[in-house]
């Protein structure tokens, strides 16, 4: 049979990307196996050669990360795990990945599909060693423009057989509001330097104009260029390694083995899901406040406050794979808390990839066992191409937290106690821009409380502080000395744990951490905002862990025009945590304009001796706090992780700490306090049906806040959730919500 050639490319049709993509999808739909790979022929014929082959691929991406990350300008990219390198198939499916931002592998096929669907093979051409870049949430699967991707095709005799891929979170994204996660953004035109997949270089070198774009369109151009060079350096290494491997094993072996690796991993991950989950429906809800009203007068449509609903239903399909439906989540709006499906998947897979793939080959096989449903028109799938996505992480982290919570409840029910914990991961970034006294402009993001947080409680032990980060396995909060080097006016007066800041329980969550940034030599101007996954208005919850409290939300406190110089002059007794800022202010020791923000604050103009304090990374508890051993409460007081008044109100433990750090518990007073807490609970409790009737009356009479009503109206505009809502409250079909 004559070979069918693709016109213009000089390639047989079956070697084109468009053909491969279509065949991959068709064969999967027909067989349920990746590329129709029902038999793992190469593995069965010579398992050792096959494992060696995979080991070579894995080594290539590991080596790339180990080498390239040192080119970085951002602590996040270099060592805080805010980066990843991967090898993908010609269609964009991940085969092997380095440590780091691994859930971003869900974005590669979106970018590559976009390029294929838009005939990039023809124009501008996809050739060996070309360099493509993107950060566009709509077309590339990037969650937000702060996450920037580099993609390098690897071709043998004109046929693309693989892609070397990389992503890292850059320091500054070039939006009107500076930083990585601009909060005040109305549509994509305010998200910053957004670029769909485009060719930016050839022969493993970037074009000069590309560097100019970074310099002109972002406030940290030199740093962003170095991060770009970092991504490309790693991709270049992978490119070289894969050419060697393909030559050694042969291209046909390479292509077939890659299909088998993904299919094998799909099966193994499915096995893991089957053996650890219990079929059922796990419902969850989270909320977020968007407070844009009054921040501007130009765009009336964006001048509003909203409460956003994140609603999820976690279940399993008949094969044992995960079905994750977000119906009931709010409709998209004119704020930065939207995202498109590719980026939403990146969020969802944070908790799924590590949980189910750590024991096997971590590849795109994981994605094939998960059906994520993002309803058109919702915050996770806007029915417009212009929605702002700058801070999608705010509620995609909440969404995945609900998914993880469901998974960990499954672990508990199956008896895997050592695997089950309260899996929250609230984080907070301090971001902004300024102009030094001499006119030098700059932009920045401080990633310290993005890099890691406390681990939640287990069913049998406490969580620990500063232990993990769900978005990367490489928990690392960096060093104060390095952040101060990069962001000159911000100096830490404190960088430590916030006592009592955790979800309490029989086993408490790990204590979260706090910083107090002290402004010095702010120059001509300095503006700061925050980007983060939670605010103190809403908990960042892993609900239902047998009565344990969820993690408290993130805290932001600003103190302007303070008397810090006087405190320094007196005895240096300055506040060292956000909690202390509030406590010092309450005592009158710290003076100035003190604000505790319950939501994302609008940009704050900061001057010398102003303070920006934040706390994040707390985690949830497990079990009833009143069942906690008194001796554990006393030890928490001794090591400074629990204030005495917290011990009394939360645990009923009456104890005092002396000057030498010795803690003494008053047993009689403790017994009395705990009895009183039980009695108080009993007095406050009521039968569930009674509570339900009271709440139903409010729903029916619309005697709830307008923002809440609006939120439920938005959620019930999706038919499935409308039915669910009416069913729960037993509302008539014609009742107007």
């Amino acid at each position: 049979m004559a070979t069918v050639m693709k016109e213009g490319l000089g390639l047989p049709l079956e070697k084109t990307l468009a053909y491969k993509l279509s065949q991959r999808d068709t064969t999967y739909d027909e067989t349920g196996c990746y590329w129709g790979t029902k038999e793992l022929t190469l593995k069965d014929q010579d398992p050792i050669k096959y494992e060696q082959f995979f080991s070579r691929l894995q080594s290539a991406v590991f080596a790339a990360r180990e080498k390239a990350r040192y080119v970085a300008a951002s602590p996040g990219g270099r060592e805080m795990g805010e980066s990843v390198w991967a090898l993908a198939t010609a269609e964009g499916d991940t085969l092997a990945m380095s440590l780091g931002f691994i859930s971003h592998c869900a974005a590669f096929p979106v970018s590559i599909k976009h390029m294929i669907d838009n005939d990039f093979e023809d124009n501008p051409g996809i050739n060996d060693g070309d360099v493509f870049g993107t950060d566009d949430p709509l077309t590339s699967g990037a969650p937000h423009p702060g996450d920037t991707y580099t993609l390098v095709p690897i071709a043998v005799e004109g046929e693309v057989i693989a892609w070397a891929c990389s992503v890292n979170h850059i320091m500054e994204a070039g939006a009107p509001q500076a930083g990585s996660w601009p909060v005040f953004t109305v549509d994509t035109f305010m998200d910053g330097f957004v670029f769909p997949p485009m060719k930016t270089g050839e022969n493993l070198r970037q074009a000069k104009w590309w560097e100019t774009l970074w310099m002109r369109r972002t406030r940290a151009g030199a740093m962003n260029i170095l991060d770009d060079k970092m991504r490309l350096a790693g991709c270049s290494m992978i490119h070289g390694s894969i050419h060697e491997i393909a030559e050694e094993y042969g291209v046909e072996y390479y292509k077939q083995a890659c299909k088998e690796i993904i299919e094998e991993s799909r099966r193994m991950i499915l096995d893991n899901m089957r053996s650890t989950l219990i079929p059922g429906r796990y419902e969850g809800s989270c909320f977020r406040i968007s407070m844009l009203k009054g921040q501007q007068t130009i765009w009336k449509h964006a001048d509003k406050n909203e409460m956003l609903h994140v609603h999820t239903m976690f279940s399993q399909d008949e094969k044992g794979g995960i079905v994750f439906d977000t119906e009931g989540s709010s409709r998209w709006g004119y704020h930065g808390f939207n995202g498109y499906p590719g980026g939403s998947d990146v969020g969802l897979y944070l908790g799924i990839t590590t949980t189910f793939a750590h024991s096997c080959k971590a590849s795109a096989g994981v994605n094939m066992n998960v059906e994520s449903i993002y309803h058109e028109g919702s915050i996770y799938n806007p029915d417009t191409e212009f929605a702002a996505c700058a801070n999608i992480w705010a509620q995609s982290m909440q969404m995945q937290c609900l998914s993880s919570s469901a998974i960990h409840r499954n672990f508990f029910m199956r008896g895997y106690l050592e695997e089950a914990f309260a899996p929250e991961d609230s984080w907070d970034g301090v971001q902004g821009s300024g102009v030094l006294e001499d006119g030098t402009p700059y932009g920045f993001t401080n990633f310290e409380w993005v890099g890691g947080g406390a681990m939640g409680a287990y069913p049998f032990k406490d969580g620990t502080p500063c232990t993990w980060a769900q978005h990367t396995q490489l928990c690392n909060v960096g060093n104060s000395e390095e952040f101060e080097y990069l962001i000159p006016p911000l100096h830490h007066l404190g960088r430590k744990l916030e006592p009592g800041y955790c979800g309490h329980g029989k086993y408490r969550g790990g204590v979260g951490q706090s910083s107090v940034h002290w402004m010095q030599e702010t120059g001509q101007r300095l503006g700061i905002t925050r980007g983060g996954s939670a605010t103190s208005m809403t908990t960042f919850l892993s609900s239902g862990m047998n009565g344990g409290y969820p993690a408290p939300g993130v805290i932001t406190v600003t103190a302007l025009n303070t008397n810090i110089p006087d405190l320094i002059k007196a005895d240096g007794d300055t506040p060292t945590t956000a909690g202390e800022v509030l406590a010092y202010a309450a005592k009158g020791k710290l003076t100035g304009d003190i604000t505790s923000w319950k939501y994302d604050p609008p940009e704050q103009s900061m001057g010398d001796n102003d303070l920006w304090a934040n706390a994040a990374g707390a985690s949830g508890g497990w079990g009833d706090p009143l069942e906690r051993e008194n001796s554990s409460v006393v030890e928490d007081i001794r090591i400074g992780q629990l204030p005495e008044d917290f011990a009394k109100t939360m645990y009923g433990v009456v104890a005092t700490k002396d000057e030498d750090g010795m803690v003494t518990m008053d047993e009689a007073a403790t017994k009395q306090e705990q009895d009183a807490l039980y009695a108080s609970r009993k007095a406050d409790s009521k039968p569930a049906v009674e509570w339900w009737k009271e709440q139903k009356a409010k729903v029916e009479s619309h005697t709830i806040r307008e923002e809440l009503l609006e939120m439920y109206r938005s959620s019930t505009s999706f038919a499935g959730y409308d039915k669910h809502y009416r069913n729960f409250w037993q509302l008539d079909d014609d009742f107007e919500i």
Partner: protein
Amino acid sequence: MSVSKEQLQKDKKYILALDAGGTMTDTILVKDDGTFTVGKALTNKQDEAASYKESVEDAAQSIGITSREAHENASVSIYAGTGMLNTLLTGTGKKVGLLVTRGFEDMSIMEGGLTYLGQTQSEILHNQLHKHTRPMVDRQNVHGVSERISGGSYFMGKHIDPGTVMVPLCLKHIKEGVKKLIKADVEVIGILFINSYIEQSHEHKAKSVALDMLKDAGIDIPVVCSSDIAPVSKENNRLKSLLLQCFAAEHTRETIADVEKTAIEDGYSARLLTLLSYGGAVNVEYPRLYETVISGPIGGMMGAQVMSQKLGLKNVCTADMGGTSFDVGLIVNNMLSIRKDPDFAGHRLALPMVAIDSVGSGAGSAVWIDEYKRLHVGPESAGAEVGICYKYDKLTVTDVNVAMGYVDPDYFLGGKVKLDVEKAKAALKKVVADPLGLDIYQAGKGILSVVNAQMRDAAKAILVSKGYNTGDFTMMCYGGAGPVHMWGYTQDFDLADVITFPYAAAFSAFGGACAEYLHRYHMGVVISIPNGSDDAGKMAVADKIDGAWRSLEAKAIAEMASEGIDSEELEYRYGFYGRYMGQLESFETLLDEGSAKSPEDIDKIIAAFEEMYTNIYPDGARFPDAGYAITEVFVQAVAPKAMPEIIEHEIEGVTPPEAAYVETRQVSHEGEFHDFKVWQMSELKAGNIIHGPSIIRDPMTTVIIPPEKRIEIDNFMVLHYR
């Protein structure tokens, strides 16, 4: 080898070097006639002085002398131990008190969040396995002191200058803290203030106040400043170095002093030396003793450096295969490759350490098949139990080597240990062959193929990840199992040469004997060189760099004088850590000269940086437009010390003497049985060529030479595998 007579003390004819591992303490005793002997004793972790003496005795007895005679005639004794690791793992260090910048009191608990250090990839992906290491200080004994010094910024010259006092040092806080620490009976006090690597005055003042208070209280305990221990950026790493010094090093100092005392009581008349983690040897007075935290593998690297100089090899990749791991290191341009912030026992340190990468592939590594029929090798290891063929309960790589015929079951450790070949074969069949549907020899071939590939990939990764061409490197193979697997892990590996040694199994102890007497001095600096700097700008930079080098030299002279070394005897090496402006990582750059007196000298420094950088990264990763930053400068000071000398032998014929032939035996190699000739190592001569299929046996190791391959023995008795 022989002892360099000009460097020996009068009438001293031996060098003693000991490598005290977790299981065995090995001694290598180098004599002036070029011969050497090896001694062994079980490591006594409770009394290292006892196992030291026992091991020396063992070596001495083998040449018919007593340990006293060995000690009396030793010009130097070098002892590399594992005491600091044991102290960390068992938590038996000093009770530490800590003063830190107010607001940073929880650093030791938070550990920067680095809860995954030392884990494998699958463990790192498994979040539930992340955990903090055992703290080296009780949080209750950490007290804050109000103070603040600026560290400077990326916008050099446009913002607060580095070293500026922003918050004055609060004496009241120091006094309150020290008072509490005295009451808490701490045994050592550490001080860490933010940015002290730039300006030490606050830490030093706090130390002075603390010492006064301790004196008044009649207490004699050390007070240690972070800026004296590790004057480099990143407070979390600096804290770990400080804590290691406080918690473990002072304890280890006592152990080494005990060993030294035992040696002296046994007739030794010099100072006992121990090995630094970045190469070099120091005595027990060395102030930053935590820098000796790993020393065993370092010995091998130093031996490799000496051998590479002797053989005229510029670039060497070392491959050390022991029972539990395969360690790879690099020597580039005759210099050891150094890692700046290495991970050790779950801690990330601010300590230059010879860069060694490890994979869990050793001769004792367990071999198993999982439920998905995937073959796994390691990291679990049999250690001294060898394998099923001896005392272990799982199949190991050595079992496979025995089953295939590579390792003679009747000549393990020279026949001291008998191995059960039938048990090895049965286990290979049950554990791997049957589940995969293979016969045992196919299974064995596959296992060795995986093990060898893991090691080959590790070696390639360290070379390629630094941008080197593998063909420019000679691989130096040692460790007990190195010569057994050398054929496998060098297969299809483009290398300049592959070499091993008759004493490969004791190479790390040999390397310890080769250590230079060396100290390394670092200074954190904040220096920028904008792109297109004029001569005046460059001259200002030159003054700063030159001043830093001279100041480090002065520190070296003072410190080494306290160890009894004349400044006239010192030699210096120079370098710096540099980066493009905006980068966060600084790269070690070595220089031929340690003087910066002119703008041209700065051009040379920039050129050296660019050359180093482009050796590592593709051209597209360069960014000279950004300008340059220098963040640290350093000086190495080297004092003379007795060194082993490699003896040159007369070249004899290519044919090995008849006396060297032992037997011919069948070996299953790469899927086929071959007749391998067996030769005795001790009978072979310089110039001999041994053609494969052959095996060279020695009581401590076995060299495998496959068909079509050969070993050529050169005039230094180095074995070249070709």
